[in-house]
């Protein structure tokens, strides 16, 4: 993948007056999204992520800063040029925003109205898009007759009607149940792969980010406080908020709280160590636990284990009790470190509820 930036925000700042109160929704944010990426922006509601992504297609004009999309300086465009540019940026919404008075086919055809395309051309495009999102049989239904997941599929088909190169997803799965969420994320992932669509996905669900994003930025109070590729962020989060978000999907802390209540942990012997082992990628190829016993006579009692596949890279977290001679334990730790396993000692008395 060539590193061609399709969205560049430079020092974008958004302030507005809301009910007499000055709101600093976006605070001097820099953001670059490259072609073909799925870029997740995660944050709690009110963090400013919706406002931030709306500066990409200028649904929200920044108070200051520069917005460049697909090589165009957005803020220099006239009204008509801006409308044409917006056709290259699709958008899907949390509440779908379909038109209740139009059928599914008419909703999908909406962006093509007034573009000079013939009825037959529009029809063909609509058929193709409905087929793509798996809703060909509902073409003549109205939005009110569809489930949430189906409505979002219509939203996606509609967003794709003008063949955009970028898709902005504004909490698109937040109103959906987990199963439907997964299927919509799968669809987005396949569109990214099939069409080379660049996706900017904002969400408060780290689970969604984990499933499909290549890069992730964490937003808080209008600022991006941490960013990076998905694996690095998961393996080595710096900010507490990032850690909190990761916890929502890994649930290590709650696992730990349950683990420390077990008798094995409560009655830890002097030759036993309670540790968390974290490893990324290749280190998992070697049978770690077996090697510990074979080479160091250290027994590992696995109390909790979790392996996530992030962008094709395994990311493992084990909570284990290691038992063995003092020297053997030290040697085992050295071995683990050589294998790029991060060892974190856990003190049961310090684990909160």
């Amino acid at each position, binding site marked *: 993948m060539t590193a061609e930036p399709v969205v560049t925000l430079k020092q974008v700042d958004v302030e507005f007056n809301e009910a007499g109160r000055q709101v600093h929704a976006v605070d001097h944010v820099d953001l670059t999204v490259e072609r073909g990426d799925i870029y997740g922006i995660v944050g709690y509601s009110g963090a400013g992520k919706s406002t931030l992504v709306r500066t990409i297609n200028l649904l929200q004009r920044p108070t200051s800063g520069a917005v460049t999309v697909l090589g165009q300086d957005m803020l220099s465009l006239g009204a*008509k040029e801006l409308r044409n540019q917006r056709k290259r940026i699709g*958008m899907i919404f949390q509440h779908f925003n379909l038109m209740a008075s139009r059928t599914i086919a008419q909703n999908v055809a909406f962006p093509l109205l007034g573009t000079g395309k013939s009825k037959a051309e529009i029809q063909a495009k609509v058929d193709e898009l409905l087929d793509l999102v798996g809703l060909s049989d509902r073409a003549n239904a109205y939005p*009110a007759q569809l489930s949430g997941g189906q409505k979002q599929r219509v939203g996606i088909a509609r967003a794709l009607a003008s063949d955009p190169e970028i898709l902005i997803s504004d909490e698109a799965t937040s109103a959906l149940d987990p199963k439907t969420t997964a299927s919509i994320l799968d669809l987005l992932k396949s569109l990214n792969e099939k069409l080379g669509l660049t996706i900017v996905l904002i969400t408060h669900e780290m689970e969604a980010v984990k499933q499909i994003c290549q890069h992730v930025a964490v937003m808080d109070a209008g600022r991006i406080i941490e960013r990076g590729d998905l694996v690095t962020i998961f393996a080595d989060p710096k900010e507490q908020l990032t850690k909190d978000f990761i916890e929502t999907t890994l649930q290590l802390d709650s696992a730990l709280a349950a683990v420390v209540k077990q008798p094995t942990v409560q009655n830890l012997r002097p030759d036993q160590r309670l540790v968390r082992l974290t490893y990324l990628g290749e280190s998992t190829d070697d049978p770690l636990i077996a090697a510990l016993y074979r080479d160091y006579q250290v027994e590992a009692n696995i109390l909790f284990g979790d392996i996530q596949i992030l962008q094709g890279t395994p990311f493992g977290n084990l909570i284990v009790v290691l038992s063995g001679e003092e020297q053997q334990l030290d040697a085992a730790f050295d071995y683990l470190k050589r294998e790029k396993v991060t060892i974190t000692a856990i003190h049961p008395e310090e684990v909160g509820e």
Partner: protein
Amino acid sequence: MSWLAKFFPNVGPIWNGDNGVVNAVIQTLYMTFWTTVIAGILGIIIGVLLVLTDEHGLLPNRVVYWITDKLVNIFRAIPFIILLAVIQPFTRLVVGTGIGTTAALVPLVAGTAPFFARQVQNAILTVDPGVVEAAQAMGSSPLAIIFRVYLREGLPELIRVSVLTIISVIGLTAMAGAIGAGGLGNLAIAVGYNSSQYDVIFVSLVFILLMVFIVQFIGDWWAKKVEH
């Protein structure tokens, strides 16, 4: 037909003729129809203008909004019977005369358009702002949004407020008799009430109610049909 003659002794003799029942029905229908058409068009234009120029609208314009908003309020505040008189010089300018059925259209429109404009504004405001935002994100122009989103998505509500407005117009035409416009209201008051011919009042009332019911029925049916 003898019971008709028995219970409505005064209606038969004035059934036809210039000041007759048939003519009064025609005059009321004439005033209602043209007021609805003209005030309807004006009201939609003004209502859309209010939505567009509102501070959260597509083309925010404080000055245009303020002036339009105040004009609408002022015209809505004038009691119709006073409006009939106040607007006469303007009516003469437009129609050539200040009295008669056609002359009554001017105050009827002036009284109805602002009322309808406010209803149109509120009807359009019921359209989900998210849908409008989606249309903007798709690159729709303000004109496209007016016709393809506001007036289309707001149609069920627009039909409902139109019914309300037409019924109010039918009511206003009853007062237009004061400037010689004729109609059923005039028949009921000028002929029926002033001559104590209560059967004439009753018949006038029946026709007015019939018109109201028909408008209501068609409106309800249509609104239901376009709502999905």
